């Protein structure tokens, strides 16, 4: 059954793409991809494929599948932001990470990777270390809320994977972040 999935997906996608009537479906496909790629490109292919099936089949159904990457992004809030050159968690960030903890409790099979990122105003190697420090700050707090340490790993991308392009304060504020991504493990 599982092996057949890609074919079903492809068929559903083709159907959506060929039929001009299902414009809503096409729209939600591209929308879904956009959300996914802004958090982590590694999940784009698998996550958006799954979404494609769902939106193509049920264009009117609202909301992502509970426990999915998209659920984490839209309903939980997948990221926390940091001040320049800092890794301190704000109270908003703590609230968000609290929701990560609840979500992980609700879906005990899920594990997450916490990605740490920095804005471009730092040297490449320092930013790798800073990103790791940010990801770790989020992880430590998550664990303090009772989440099993084995369910949250960290990775740093330094300044390599900005969420928002542009050399401006708004982009920088969005790029100094730690992002929870559903682990493929």
């Amino acid at each position, binding site marked *: 059954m599982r092996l057949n999935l890609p074919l079903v997906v492809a068929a559903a996608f083709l159907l959506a793409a060929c039929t001009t009537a299902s414009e809503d479906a096409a729209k939600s496909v591209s929308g879904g991809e956009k959300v996914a*790629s802004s958090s982590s490109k590694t999940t784009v292919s698998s996550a958006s494929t799954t979404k494609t099936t769902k939106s193509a089949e049920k264009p009117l159904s609202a909301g992502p599948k509970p426990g999915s990457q998209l659920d984490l992004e839209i309903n939980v809030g997948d990221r926390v932001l940091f001040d320049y050159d800092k890794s301190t968690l704000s109270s908003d960030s703590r609230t968000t990470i609290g929701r990560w903890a609840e979500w992980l409790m609700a879906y005990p099979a899920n594990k997450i990777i916490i990605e740490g990122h920095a804005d471009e105003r*730092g040297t490449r*190697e320092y930013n*790798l*270390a800073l990103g790791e420090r940010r990801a770790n700050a989020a992880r430590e707090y998550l664990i303090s809320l009772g989440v099993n340490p084995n369910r949250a790993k960290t*990775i740093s991308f330094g300044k390599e994977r900005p969420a928002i392009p*542009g050399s401006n304060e708004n982009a920088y504020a969005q790029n100094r972040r730690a992002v929870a991504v559903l682990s493929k493990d």
Partner: protein
Amino acid sequence: MVPYLAKMIIAVSMAVVIFPTLSLVFAQTSQKKLVVNVNEGTYKPLPIAIPDFHAVGSGAEGYAVSISKVISDNLQRSGLFSPIDKRAFLSIPNSVKERPNFVNWKPLNAQALVIGEAKILPNNALGIEFVLYDVFAEQVMIRYQLSISSSKAWRRLAHTAADQIYKRITGESGYFDTRVVYISERGPTKKRKKRLSIMDQDGHNHKYLTDGNSLVLTPRFSPIRDEITYLAYFDEQQPPRVYLLNIENSDQVTLGTFPGMTFAPRFSPDGRKVIMSMAERGNTDIYVMDLLTLNQKQLTTHPAIDTSPSYSPDCSKIVFESDRGGSQQLYVMNSNGKNQRRISFKRGGRYGTPVWSPRGDLIAFTKFYKGSFHIGVMKSDGSGERLLTKGFIVEGPTWAPNGRVLMFYRQQRQNEKGEGSNPRLYSIDLTGHNEREIITPEDASDPAWSRLTSDIDPEKIKKICPD
């Protein structure tokens, strides 16, 4: 480049008119032997005449012309020489055996003259012979015969010849027969495709070493083998690792068995070790790994970020950056990790990516100060700081093997669509003069300069770093 050429042409035409005065000046110079004082803050490039090399026998015509051009281009890019427009040449000796008529070269203000020949040797080898003359002393400065086993590698003949000319006239060893590894970049900011790439120092013989499917960063050359160490994310859900890649046969190994992300690798000056950072639970420390015994040793234990380590050329010390004092600053320690002390004290700046000069006297760094990035140098005790260039982002200095030229990358501000950052490689003289772009096929960052190719040899570079 253009201003130098323009000035040179004027000088040539003036020299014809006021020849006697000029010749007197240079007659004195020639008694002291032809020397360029390369330590002056401002210097005038030395006019040098390099006619096309002659081809001896058949088949070498193309090589002869190309080799003399590459020699000329190298010397010109160094900023220390100004090759004279070939159209001004009056008569050229027909071979390296024929003594030039110096009267024909003095009016052009040519201080030095290079006459050369190229010929095809058996088994598709290629040879050159060239003579460097001091025009005003009317003397031979050097005469060399060089050959290379494959004519395909003809550029190395040209680079080596240029290195010899540079060395004889400046008194410093050359840096033209070298390569650069760096990161080629393309695509949108959010999904940047980065490839490990290698080229000659002048941008020729360009080659991609990875396919761009994995994010790769910060390559560095081994001083003793055709190997590089770099950082890669082969699985973007796993922490990146430091790898060792053999350029010749593409063999690759992961360096070390570390629980966390490893990054910021650099070879020891004897090429037997790699020093790097490992980040775990928010703390980054410096480790060294012996490539033969595979022993790993932790050198820093501070809970702050300690990264970007670089050995002194005698292997006795390591410079690194740390934010243990509250912001990114430079520190020096003994190579066993003892005696850690801060060396950057100027107020109001953050310092990163220190790299020890191959001469041992200076440390190059990236400085973030008043909203701009700078490339600078300081003495190894932290005194004598000089900023060489600045920009929106300038980062990652790397030294030419003679410790006289630095390469780095420069990146511009990007617009809201992520366009316009255009990272590119530049070289700059230690004096802060002569900044020049190295042309690459795509955007470029993270350059690392090799040693002279002829020095990359474990027999020549003995083990000097203690176990």
